[in-house]
């Protein structure tokens, strides 16, 4: 083999292990899910052959699916948008020099570093009517005289789950943005200050355009993570009452492991995959193209 060929082949050799690993551990399971979704699956898990997309039509016809899809969209948008805004603001604060900044940054990581199941259980413990710490605290402070039911209906439960989702997602956004902020050369700000720019002019004309790429990455990953998030909702409500707090992931889990409808569960999974693929690709194409125009 001459040097030229070797040089051409070399990069492929380097990436071969990761490509093979991804093929085995990612593509195979994905194909397997597609296969199950297209098959008539017995309750004991036996594949009985192609069933003309019956799993998909059953899922799409079910009124619960529409409800669950709506919940998933509300859940994803609310958690991603609010946590991105709050995470961005927090990153701006943490980027300033102040006493105890290191400790503050460390504290921000805590929610991120704790297991989601533990986080969700803690939130459940806080808002519980009978023994919740929130009621205990408010009663000690004499702000309320009797325990308040913080979860009087399904909507309230869902709001608490979204709040918990936001709380655990903020650190991720903060750190992505913070890394972007730290890479901005201070001379831009100095030049702007000399030209008499206000704080908001600097924020919108320097900071935002320059952290956009980190923000894009954070948002795309967040959409995927939040859309697929299982532990918070499962720990807090299991999707109850009557699927009012179910998202696609908890719904498909129930279909697969409570109803033994693995074919339909796989179909829900495929639908979720396609939705995410479209959303994430559109978002990336849009932001990347816009980024090019700006530069």
């Amino acid at each position, binding site marked *: 083999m001459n040097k030229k060929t070797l040089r051409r082949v070399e990069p492929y050799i380097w990436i071969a292990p990761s490509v093979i690993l*991804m093929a085995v*551990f*990612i*593509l195979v*399971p*994905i194909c397997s899910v597609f296969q199950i979704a297209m098959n008539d699956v*017995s*309750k*004991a*898990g*036996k*594949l009985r052959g192609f069933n003309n997309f019956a799993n998909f039509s059953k899922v799409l016809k079910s009124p619960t699916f529409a409800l669950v899809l709506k919940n998933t969209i509300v859940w994803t948008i609310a958690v991603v948008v609010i946590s991105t805004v709050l995470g961005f603001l927090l990153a701006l604060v943490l980027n300033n020099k102040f006493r105890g900044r290191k400790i503050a940054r460390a504290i921000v990581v805590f929610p991120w570093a704790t297991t*989601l*199941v533990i986080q969700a259980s803690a939130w459940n413990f806080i808002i519980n*009517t*009978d*023994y919740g710490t929130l009621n205990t605290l408010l009663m000690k402070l004499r702000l309320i005289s009797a325990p308040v*039911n913080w*979860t009087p209906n*399904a909507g309230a*439960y869902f709001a608490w789950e979204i709040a918990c989702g936001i709380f655990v997602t903020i650190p991720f956004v903060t750190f992505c943005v913070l890394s972007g902020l730290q890479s901005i050369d201070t001379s831009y700000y100095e030049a702007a200050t000399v030209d008499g720019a206000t704080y908001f002019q600097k924020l919108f004309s320097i900071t935002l355009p320059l952290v956009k790429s980190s923000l894009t990455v954070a948002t*795309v*990953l967040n959409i*995927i*993570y939040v859309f*697929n*998030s*299982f*532990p918070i909702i*499962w720990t807090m*409500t*299991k*999707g*109850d*009452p*009557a*699927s*009012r707090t179910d998202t696609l*992931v908890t719904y498909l*889990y*129930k279909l697969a*492991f*409570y*109803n*033994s409808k*693995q074919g339909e569960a796989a179909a829900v999974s495929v639908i979720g*995959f396609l939705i*995410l*693929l479209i959303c*994430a*690709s559109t978002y*990336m*194409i849009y932001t*990347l*193209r816009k980024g090019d125009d700006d530069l």
Partner: protein
Amino acid sequence: MKKILAAVLASTMALALAACGGGGGTTSGTPQTCGGSSNTPAPSTGGKVEISAIVAEYGQNTRTWWADFEKEFNASHDDINLTVEVQSWNDISTVVNTRISGDAAPDILNIDLFAAYQADDLLLPAQDYVSADTYAKFYQSFLDQSVVDGVVWAIPDLASARAMYYNKDILEAAGVEVPTTWDELKAACEAIKAYDSNIYPWGIDMTTDEGQAAAAYYIWNNGGDFTDADGNWTLNSDKNVEAIEYAIGLINDGLTNTDPANETRYNLQDLLGAGQLAMMIGPNSIPTYVADGGYSVNLGVASIPTNGGNPSVSAGVMDRFMVFDNGYTDEELAAITEFFDYFYEDTRYSEWVLMEGFLPATSAGGEIVAASDPEMAPWVEIVGSCKFYPVAKAEWDDVKTGIIRAEQEALLGGNVQELLDNLQAEIAG
């Protein structure tokens, strides 16, 4: 174009990565390889007959008990090599289903449900592998729970039953007798509420975990049932509707815990232990649970209240052993028979049941358990006569989740009659 392609590729990869990372807490740890190596029966090594079993992990001591069992069994049977694999309740179905799809079903399986395996023609009839002596030990009512088309497909391993637990001190302070009928129950709840509005008089769990049990308590004690005598679904019968409406009525009148769609039986047991709940229906393990939680309340146990003069019915839950049809030779089948004879030997079996804290499925076991633990004695009596869910019917999974959904919809204001009519139409077609 290249950029678009790159973006699509990148998001596919990110998605795939998220799919890998996002599965935490769901089924992690389950995919034990299904290469079909050790589980298919093979009259292999050293002329020994190989048999394999997958059993459910009931408690902290299950693993040790089965490890000892395996050792003793193999030591006393030179010609058999038994392998027992203990799986947690979270994983056991997934593990077994994975094995089945890899044509590597275990020989013996200990789990709750059998109908799905039977429907796929995967099981052997119980009388093919259980000796007449062992077969004669089981309560007939237990064997009846595993009958499909007149054939018994699985044998019971243990059971649990339900009764009403109440806080004696609260009932006494509120000046009420232990209720035996629905009318008395409602009156007692109102009296307790009047005595102390911070105490929940009655506990109801209509969660995804165990909402079907709530339905069973009221339906069965109103003379209703999930099926008729011929095994046809009767989910929307008048008695069933009346029963669910009664339970929902108690909740709407503020006589129960605040959130029955999200508060599981364990939450209720905590409230009972903390003295915040006066009465609830639950299994015989409640006193132990309450004591382990560090609570000390004065608990009493009584039959579940009934309506319309019907006798009180306890709800039973039963688990099973079944044998997969792996094309056995006579020696292999004999080895499996020997396994069950050895396991159901009276002393060994009752020791296991006592260790797990459940109720026995054999009459001899029942006598030993009742004699060794006076607190268990009334329960042994209850379990011999309690009613079970119709799990032999393959639609039970759908009925179970359907009835829970109906209860939760009713909690949100739905009409019970309509909800059960819809469920009946969906299930019975």
